[in-house]
Structure formats: structure tokens, C-alpha cells
């Protein structure tokens, strides 16, 4: 029996930061995961975690402002799926704790769902920094340094085993 290689190249998906974009992206991602894993259950778990993550990016990172980009990078390595959700909005300075809120609370379940539906996750803030060194004639090899953050991105990486 020959099964042609299990490793696929990744797919990068980009949507605008609108709630209407979440469904098409969710369906496309579900199909990718189902194709790679053959498991409806695994694809559903990932779709759940990703939809909650996208909701969070739209609401919290982009403060509900349309016209921003969200990038989702899907890839497979052996029996792991890796999904990176990238935004250029407000960065978190710590992760929310994954606990359920009071039964009648209407917010605060998203992170619990993310936490429950994947095997591992981490959040990364990547900054693009311009470092300026100014040398002046007085003062030999001494210089003034100035650092400016030119751009940044926030990357939530979700890992799921299958």
C-alpha cells in the first residue's frame, strides 16, 4: 500500500477584521483540518478554538474596527496541526486565565474554549524595532541610542495533535 506523503505545505488565509469574515474562514479551516486528519472531531475542535480566537482579535485587538487584516496560517507537521492567528492590533500583556465565568455571565468563555480544544497554545508579540545610533564628533566612540518600535504583530499559535 502506498500512501502519498502525509506532509502538506501550509496554506495562509487572510480575512478582514469583520464578524462576517469569520464563517467563511471557519469553514475553510475546518475543511483543511478534516482533509489533513480525517477526523471530524479534531476539525471541529480546531474550528472552535480558531473562531473564538478570531472573535477576540476582532473585539479586543482591533476594538471592533473593520479594515484591519487577520492572517491565519495553517500547517501540518507529522501528526500535529499548527494554526497561527496573526493580528496587528492591541497586544495582550498577559494571557487571560482559562476559567469559566459565573453561569449567567455573558462573556468570558472564549479563552476556556480555546484552552479546552487544543493541546497547546502560546501567544507572541513580535516587534519590528528601529535602533538608531548617533555618533557625535565630541565624545570619541560614544553614541546616543534611540529605539523606535516601527510595527508589531501578535501571534497566537494553536497546536493540535491527531
Amino acid at each position: 500500500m502506498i500512501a502519498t506523503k502525509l506532509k502538506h505545505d501550509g496554506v495562509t488565509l487572510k480575512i478582514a477584521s469583520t464578524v462576517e469574515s469569520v464563517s467563511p474562514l471557519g469553514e475553510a479551516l475546518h475543511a483543511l483540518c478534516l482533509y489533513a486528519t480525517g477526523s471530524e472531531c479534531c476539525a471541529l475542535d480546531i474550528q472552535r478554538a480558531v473562531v473564538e480566537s478570531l472573535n477576540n482579535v476582532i473585539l479586543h485587538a482591533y476594538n471592533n474596527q473593520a479594515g484591519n487584516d487577520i492572517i491565519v496560517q495553517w500547517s501540518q507537521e507529522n501528526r500535529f496541526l499548527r494554526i497561527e492567528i496573526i493580528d496587528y492590533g492591541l497586544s495582550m500583556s498577559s494571557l487571560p486565565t482559562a476559567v469559566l465565568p459565573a453561569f449567567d455571565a455573558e462573556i468570558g468563555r472564549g479563552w476556556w474554549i480555546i484552552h479546552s480544544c487544543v493541546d497547546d497554545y502560546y501567544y507572541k508579540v513580535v516587534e519590528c524595532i528601529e535602533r538608531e545610533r548617533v555618533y557625535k564628533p565630541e565624545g570619541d566612540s560614544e553614541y546616543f541610542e534611540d529605539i523606535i518600535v516601527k510595527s508589531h504583530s501578535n501571534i497566537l499559535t494553536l497546536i493540535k495533535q491527531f
Partner: protein
Amino acid sequence: MILHEQKHDDIDIVVLSGRFIMADTPEVRERLKSLIDEGSGKLIIDMEKVTFIDSSACAVLISAFKNIQIKSGRLVLVTSPVVQSLIELTRLHTIFEILPTLPTALDAFGAN
């Protein structure tokens, strides 16, 4: 998603189908609120044909539950497996009354 309303005697039935996520919550929240405000206090939300649900849609269900409690009414949910498993994951099955099909939900209200 598609929202369809029907009435059985004095029981309001809201049938949802397709994906039920954040994009759909304003409309569904609004519809449920006015149904509860104007209704008899008997409400079934039939999600047997819902193919995906997220936490913001669960929040709409919680909101409906709270609104109907204020009126001393009763809310029964009918769930698909995908809906049921998210409700269980978020432990909401401990507060909602859930029945497997619309007929059993109608039975629960004593409808014939």
C-alpha cells in the same frame, strides 16, 4: 444562519439553522428579546439544524434564559450534537433545560 419563527398554541418556537456565531448575534438577540417581551413565557429554541455555534451565541441563549426567568417563563432548548457538546464544554447544560427534539420539547410544555 436562518431564523424561522413558528407558534404552537401559546408556545413560541424559534428554529435556527446553519452557523450561529458572533455575526448573527445582534439579530437573534433582538428577535428573542421581543418574542419574550410579547410572548406567553413559553419558548423553545430549536437548534437541531445548527451546524456550528460559538461562545457569543451561547451568550445570546443565556440572555434569553435570564429574560424569561424575569417573566417566570420557561425556556427549552433543542440541540444538535455540535451545539450540545459546546454547551457541555462550557457547563451550561447545568442551567439550561435541554431536550433532544422539538416534539419532546412540545411535550414538556404539555402541548398535544
